[in-house]
């Protein structure tokens, strides 16, 4: 790896003498870079490399999605794609730092294992099936309406009004936005669903 200048384009572009002068060992001796960690380690290729953060068309302010410290993130976007996520030095909380999870969050958003399409498993089914998002939404709406109707409780044994269903439950919210939790609670309450819970209980 010493010198590491194996760039084919450079070899083709220059003559043999220049190539010899570029030999990393000679450069190490010439530049007094005995350990080979200084200028002699540079190649034309490495000199031309530009950080993804510098090439981005856009930097978007964000917050780390993992724990509740709330570290500031800078999301670098190029060509409509997230290319890098770094800590935000302006944040008075994190001062530019991220932990291993926050630092890996580019892999969270660009993960090839991320689902892209709706998957559906029918009753007693053995495999996933495809379903359009519109159809899935429509089916879920129908399930909610039907289960709610079948399990509705108007009153308890003492005649007190209940206005609810215990046939539907929900779990989740701690990884979601405040605005999302607000719509979840608002809609479920209006539907009479009370078993609404999230990780804050757990």
């Amino acid at each position, binding site marked *: 790896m010493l010198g590491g200048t194996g760039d084919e384009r450079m070899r083709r572009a220059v003559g043999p003498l220049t190539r010899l002068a570029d030999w990393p060992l000679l450069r190490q001796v010439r530049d007094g870079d005995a350990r080979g960690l200084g200028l002699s380690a540079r190649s034309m290729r490495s000199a031309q490399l530009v950080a993804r953060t510098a090439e981005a068309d856009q930097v978007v*302010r964000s917050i780390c999605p993992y*724990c509740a410290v709330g570290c500031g993130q800078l999301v670098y976007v190029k060509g409509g794609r997230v290319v890098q996520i770094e800590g935000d030095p302006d944040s008075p909380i994190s001062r530019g730092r991220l932990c291993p999870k926050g630092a890996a969050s580019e892999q969270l958003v660009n993960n090839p294992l*991320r689902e892209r399409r709706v998957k559906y498993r029918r009753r007693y089914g053995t495999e996933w099936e495809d379903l359009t998002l519109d159809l899935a939404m429509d089916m879920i709406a129908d399930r*909610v309406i039907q289960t709610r109707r079948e399990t509705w409780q108007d009153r308890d044994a003492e005649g007190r009004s209940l206005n609810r269903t215990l046939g539907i439950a929900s779990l989740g919210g701690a990884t979601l936005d405040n605005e999302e939790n607000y*719509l979840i609670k608002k809609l479920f309450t209006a539907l009479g669903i009370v078993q609404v*819970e999230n990780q804050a209980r757990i």
Partner: protein
Amino acid sequence: MGSNMAECHPVGFQWVLEAKLKGATVIHVDPRFTRTSANASFHVPIRPGTDIAFLGAIVNHVLQNGLDFREYVVAYTNAAALVSQDFRDTEDLDGLFSGWDPDQHAYVTRSWRLSDERDETLQDPRCVYQVLKRHFSRYTPEMVERVCGVPPDRFLRVAEALCQSSSRERTSAIVYSVGWTQHTVGVQNVRTAAILQLLLGNVGRPGGGILALRGHASIQGSTDIPTLYNLLPGYLPMPAAGHHLDTVAGDRPRGYWGHRKAFTVSLLRAWFGEAATQENDFCYDLLPRITGDHSTYPTILGMLDGEVRGFFVLGENPAVGSANSSLHRMAMAKLDWLVVRDLVEIETASFWKDAPEIARGELRTTEIPTEVFLLPAAAHTEKDGSFTNTQRLLQWHHAAVAPAGDRRSELWFFYHLGRLIRSKLAASTDPRDQLLRSLTWDYPTDGPSAEPSAEAVLAEINGRDAEGRPLSSFTQLREDGTTACGCWIYCGSYAGAINQTARRRPGAEQTWVAPEWGWAWPANRRLLYNRASADPAGQPWSERKRYVWWDESAGRWAGEDVPDFRLDMAPGYRPPPEAVAELALRGDEPFVMQPDGRGWLFAPSGLRDGPLPAHYEPEESPVENPLYEVTASPTAQRYDRPANRRNQVGPGFPYVLTTYRLTEHHTAGGMSRFLPFLSELQPEMFCEVSPELAVERGLVNGGWAVITSARSTIEARVLVTDRVRPVRLGSRLVHQVGLPYHWGGRGLSRGDSANDLLSIVLDPNVHIQECKAATCDIRPGRRGR
């Protein structure tokens, strides 16, 4: 205590390290030696589940030696109040408080009340201070050694360091996480810290407090705007059967809760708009009612019994992350339908084909009736919205790119689901659909996928006046229906029609309080109850700890932060008899949410397991309780059923088990086990055991072990390490097994789930499971397949 901050909240820990460089003493009291311990001034290993005994002994040390901050204690706590004549302590009743009903397994709390009498000399035997002193008198250093396994000299080092750093000139903070909460006595663990911090004058002052480090980006937000069964937004109670608007909001308690009706009515106006009128009590009676505990564990048991038929799972993974996870998987196999919304195909989505119960033959795919919808979610970079972090700070994240394919935000999913259901029921005349039809459900949408505007939702949460103008403070909320506000504590987050949560003035350009970064509830206040940072006369306790003070010439409170007090209420204010809400409190009573304006050393109401903390053993413990005849918490919620059997005391389960997180993984793994970097850093499930336990059981470092409870058996690689130490209790050596709980059967990094081993047994106040202390056995080898 109860926190491994360096590994679980690493970036927050930079401030602890910085404080240490400036001379702070950092103490880590925790069963395991972790990076937090390595960076602390010293580490004190403790047996899991004995924090009340340890902290209670510090309380005793403070009281026996008169080390409390007396002026603060007399003025700002209920130390001087006299307890009811009928009250009997655990000291009198051998581990029970007065009011115990053995048939109901619950307390009647009438005898815990305080009288109106006070003794500011703190000498009356009935005053809270003296009750406290008697209650904790047997929590001695010797008892700490017997219960916690901590030698007296190490205990005293902690007690003395804490007391020396708590005074007019100095404050100390206590940091905790789920190491404290995930117990049958979770709430009382935190209560003990509250008592200690109030006695030492460490509440409402800079550098003080009890700091909960929470584990999810918006778990605080999902408590404030609760996806929780017992709450409405802003900690308003979810209506119970028999409750009406006047039941919950008719009276006007002293303190800020005296405005509860205005908060509730404004919420109902935000949700139901013009349909919520004075005449119909703003639709309050149409809201669904709760009739007991509808929290997640009883709900899952209801699912197992076939009562719950439809289930939404939104960014959670109960098949891995909930205690007794096998029971959760079995329960989901009883559902009619399940909707999972996540980034990846987590174990909760795929249980019907690859749950361990399928491999074991306990479930058959072709016999599981559950219809499953797996809907891909948008990531944080693909949607606008705010997270509320662990310090109550709302921070906006902006969408950087559009989500691809069918990926959508929860905002999109719920807005459109609501729109669809409402349109399907638009013609309904069924009174059961009336509330749904009355719902305000118009949000502007944008783009080809019709993504609703998160900012419009924030504006609704913030609230509007009768003319539709954004409100700037919850003090503007009215009970006559002229204001609408989706969450009163978030009122002001959209003041002036500006998204205050998106403010990002660089920290370096601000004061150390940094008030212009994001927005903290309530009222952008960064330190709660900060009136207590000044003395009763309104002056800072010391120059060094100056934070908020009364400016006599200006006639108002001033300071580094937004004062947590009525700005114009002078320290000498005394309420007239007809005063209500915060005006019924005195100018020197800083705890403005409390009806008496004071910090509660003794909790006369609100708790189900006692007005004071008492040490009870975990539900599963290898030892008896040396303090009382009662061993485990008498009020713990227990569920005796075949799928949730309890480990019997005895040789079958001789070891203490505790679970925890790693830096490189995140809770049930949905956001970490599928990432290459994180999976490489922590590639597989393991267990931590001491060299002594390894010898006792023949465990080999790097080899396999089988860990067993009455619920399940799992396997893990063995890590033999001094980080986990046996605890000596008298003549007995108690060994511990440490288990990270991130793993499941899917992802790049796979393994058995530690939560399979745990039982469902809950704290009676908040219904959280005990997963930080249980018992188990461990043997070398692999589990059967």
